[in-house]
């Protein structure tokens, strides 16, 4: 009951700060008092609606109502009615435009929470689902969240009543505008749940509300029809829910409710169920707290029919399913499949910043930097202020050596948000590209201080330590990154490289192997694993992996070069020369190719050819060390000739 007191207290505060309502809900969930939570949610939902009406010039004694609501709701606990959704429904109608986003969460949660009290199974599922998500709850939603959600506010609010057909229609009507903001949020939320990037508090909050909604809706779906199947489905769904919720966050809170219910059964025929469920969920409770009593469902003044809602729901569902599929595949690093999944999206959904960032990331994992660059730049055009995934974009530009674009990106990111680790990662990449590793290291440390759970910042500082030849600190940084996210294959790769430099080849093989296990499509990791195997004298395996790498990415010249190296040290000169000839086609201006060929010809005592190739290698302006090596090799070429001359003259 102290929760109730807390709630009442917070409600008082809520008059001034609407976001506090979200805090209430979160607190309720967090304390794990699910039952109380449902009560709280419904009250909160009611209050939100009331407040929103208040703001639009409706008189309403909010606080008084809330306590009444609470009583009513608690009395209703194991009934099959949904107080809040109805309340919400009734409060919809006109003027839902100005409603800030955080209310959506509150409202939805309440709607969801109040529904499942039907029978055992749905209750249990409800209790099961919130707890994992409760841990994701965090503090108060800061104002930007409201702002962001503002355009969607009208949609979501109208939609907030669980399973109301109107809401679905509403959201579809508003769809084009909403997608813009939503995808960015989706990305952030999915990032939060599945990666280590520090989410912004605003996104975290919206993500939490979405997650909660999902959990609740999963339980809610058990309302009325198909309780048992829904129970099973919901428990399975709850694990799926967070991801899908995050993906869909922007779309519609209530839609989620409906969708979750739909997911439980087949994706198609649940619409009817949902519709029936929602209708059954309207009970004759607690409407007094709301100013607008009455069963009319208004959406912008238009009454929407159930059929439209159903088709809208299935449309949204398909969309969400595709997005979720794409995201799942990219988490498994099956990047080509992920890209195919994203391509199945309709055009206007594909061209949103979240999806484009995910596409860019998938290309990045495939070591296809040009495509990644394209996708990320489109994402930036679509949503220039979103930060998620921009650290990957800065790495792409680093690889492509586009220092102009990279510094421009950095400037933009820093001016967008000085306190985001992604902006500082981009700046660090910029300095690292200029070979100023000490400054880059300082900047990556700043990124780490801003968010110590941002694994990529740790990995990047590890890279800088290695560039400064400080291997001890490099190992520590990589291990930090792995502690945060053990699936961060860049850190595994980094550790493998350090051990390779230190000639601890067994360790290096293990780490490259782990990296490859996580991301099996990266040809660079494969080629390094091959080099390590060769150093361990397992040359046949090495050659096999090199061939795999060559097949995986035809544009990558590195595996071929390494293969030639291995063949040369195995003294299979002809094969090596063959590979190098092929490589010459791919990268005609690479001096190391010619230098290596010259070396091979020298070993085979074909001096004229060796001279030719060394000459070409020198023309292509290699680094100073290589110039020295090549010239030394040329000098040595002459000595055997002299010897021959001497012998012939004798």
């Amino acid at each position, binding site marked *: 009951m102290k929760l109730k007191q807390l709630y009442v207290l917070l409600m008082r505060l809520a008059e001034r700060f609407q976001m506090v309502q979200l805090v209430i809900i979160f607190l309720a969930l967090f304390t794990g008092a699910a039952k109380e939570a449902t009560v709280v949610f419904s009250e909160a939902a009611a209050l939100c609606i009331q407040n929103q009406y208040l703001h639009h010039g409706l008189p309403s004694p909010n606080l008084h109502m809330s306590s009444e609501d609470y009583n009513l709701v608690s009395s209703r606990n194991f009934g099959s009615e949904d107080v809040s959704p109805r309340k919400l429904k009734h409060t919809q109608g006109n003027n839902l435009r100005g409603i800030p986003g955080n209310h959506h969460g509150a409202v939805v949660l309440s709607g969801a929470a109040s529904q499942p009290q039907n029978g055992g199974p749905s209750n249990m599922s409800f209790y099961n689902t919130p707890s994992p998500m409760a841990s994701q709850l965090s503090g108060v939603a800061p104002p930007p969240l409201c702002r962001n959600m503002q355009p969607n506010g009208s949609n979501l609010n109208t939609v907030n009543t669980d399973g109301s057909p109107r809401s679905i229609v509403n959201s579809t009507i508003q769809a084009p505008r909403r997608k813009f903001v939503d995808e960015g949020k989706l990305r952030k939320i999915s990032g939060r749940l599945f990666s280590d990037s520090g989410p912004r508090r605003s996104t975290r909050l919206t993500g939490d509300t979405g997650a909660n909604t999902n959990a609740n809706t999963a339980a809610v779906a058990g309302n009325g029809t198909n309780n048992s199947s829904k129970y099973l489905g919901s428990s399975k769904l709850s694990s799926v829910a967070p991801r899908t919720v995050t993906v869909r966050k922007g779309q519609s809170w209530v839609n989620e409710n409906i969708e979750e219910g739909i997911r439980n059964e087949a994706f198609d025929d649940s619409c009817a169920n949902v519709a029936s469920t929602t209708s059954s969920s309207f009970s004759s409770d607690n409407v007094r707290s709301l100013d607008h009593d009455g069963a009319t469902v208004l959406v912008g003044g238009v009454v929407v029919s159930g059929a439209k809602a159903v088709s809208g729901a299935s449309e949204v569902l398909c969309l969400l399913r595709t997005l979720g599929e794409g995201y799942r595949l990219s988490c498994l690093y099956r990047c080509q499949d992920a890209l195919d999944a994203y391509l199945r999206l309709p055009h206007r959904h594909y061209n949103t910043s979240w999806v484009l960032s995910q596409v860019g990331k998938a290309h990045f994992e495939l070591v296809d930097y040009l495509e990644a660059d394209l996708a990320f730049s489109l994402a930036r055009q679509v949503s220039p202020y979103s930060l998620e995934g921009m650290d990957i974009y800065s790495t792409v530009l680093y*690889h492509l050596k586009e220092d102009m674009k990279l510094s421009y990106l950095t400037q933009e990111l820093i001016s967008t948000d000085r306190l985001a680790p992604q902006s500082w990662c981009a700046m660090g990449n910029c300095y690292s590209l200029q070979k100023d590793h000490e400054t880059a290291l300082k900047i990556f440390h700043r990124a780490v201080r801003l968010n110590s759970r941002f694994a990529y910042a740790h990995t990047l500082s590890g890279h800088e330590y290695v560039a400064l030849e400080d291997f001890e600190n490099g190992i520590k940084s990589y291990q930090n990154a792995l502690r945060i996210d053990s699936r961060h294959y860049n850190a595994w790769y980094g550790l493998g490289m350090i051990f390779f430099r230190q000639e601890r080849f067994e360790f290096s093989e293990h780490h490259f192997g782990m*990296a490859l296990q996580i991301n099996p499509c990266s040809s660079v990791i494969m080629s390094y694993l091959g080099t390590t195997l060769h150093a361990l004298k397992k040359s046949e395996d090495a050659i096999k992996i090199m061939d795999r790498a060559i097949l995986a990415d035809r544009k990558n010249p*590195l595996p071929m070069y390494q293969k030639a*190296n291995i063949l040369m040290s195995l003294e299979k000169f002809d094969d090596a020369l063959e590979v190098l000839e092929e490589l010459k086609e791919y990268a005609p201006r*690479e001096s*190391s190719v010619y230098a290596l060929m010259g070396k091979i010809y020298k070993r085979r005592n074909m001096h004229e050819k060796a001279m030719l190739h060394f000459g070409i290698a020198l023309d292509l302006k290699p*680094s*100073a060390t290589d110039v*020295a090596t090549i010239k030394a090799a040329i000098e040595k070429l002459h000595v055997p000739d002299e010897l021959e001359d001497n012998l012939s003259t004798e």
Partner: protein
Amino acid sequence: MATESSESEEEGKITGGNQHLIVEDDLREMGKKAAWSVSSCKTGNGVSSLRDDNLETYWQSDGAQPHLVNIQFQKKVKLQLVVLYVDFKLDESYTPSKISIRAGDGFHNLKEIKTVELVKPTGWVYLSLSGNDPRETFVNTFMLQIAVLSNHLNGRDTHVRQIKVYGPRPNPIPHQPFQFTSREFITYSTVR
């Protein structure tokens, strides 16, 4: 170190100096890994002024000529370039005139590798350590000693404002015989 003493006796005269320090991309400053010491200094103008990246502060010697700056590394390093900032307009009789660079394993076996005469320098002066032989682009050594043998206008003590030592960058990919030059190779050469 393979340079012979006969080569090191060639003298070069350097006039003027650059206002800006411009060094090739494939060189990196090696001074941070070294221990720096000087033969003598005036209080307040010690060896730290040589490494503080501040051209206002300078090292002032306080003993008999030749004045020495010793740079000692923990392991043998390849060095290619030494750059000094000296200014005749500011320092006049304190400006170094004859400079000799020696290298070796320690104080006991330093050998002169370069001698140069400066004529009214005003800025960064580049002293390349490479020999004529292409195989001698670098000096592979434990220790470097920069000796100021005489000053302009026969001054006794000397002012040097900054010294930097450069060597080649190591290959970013270990155990690779040659470094990559073309963009296609470099793009794919690491995972970041």
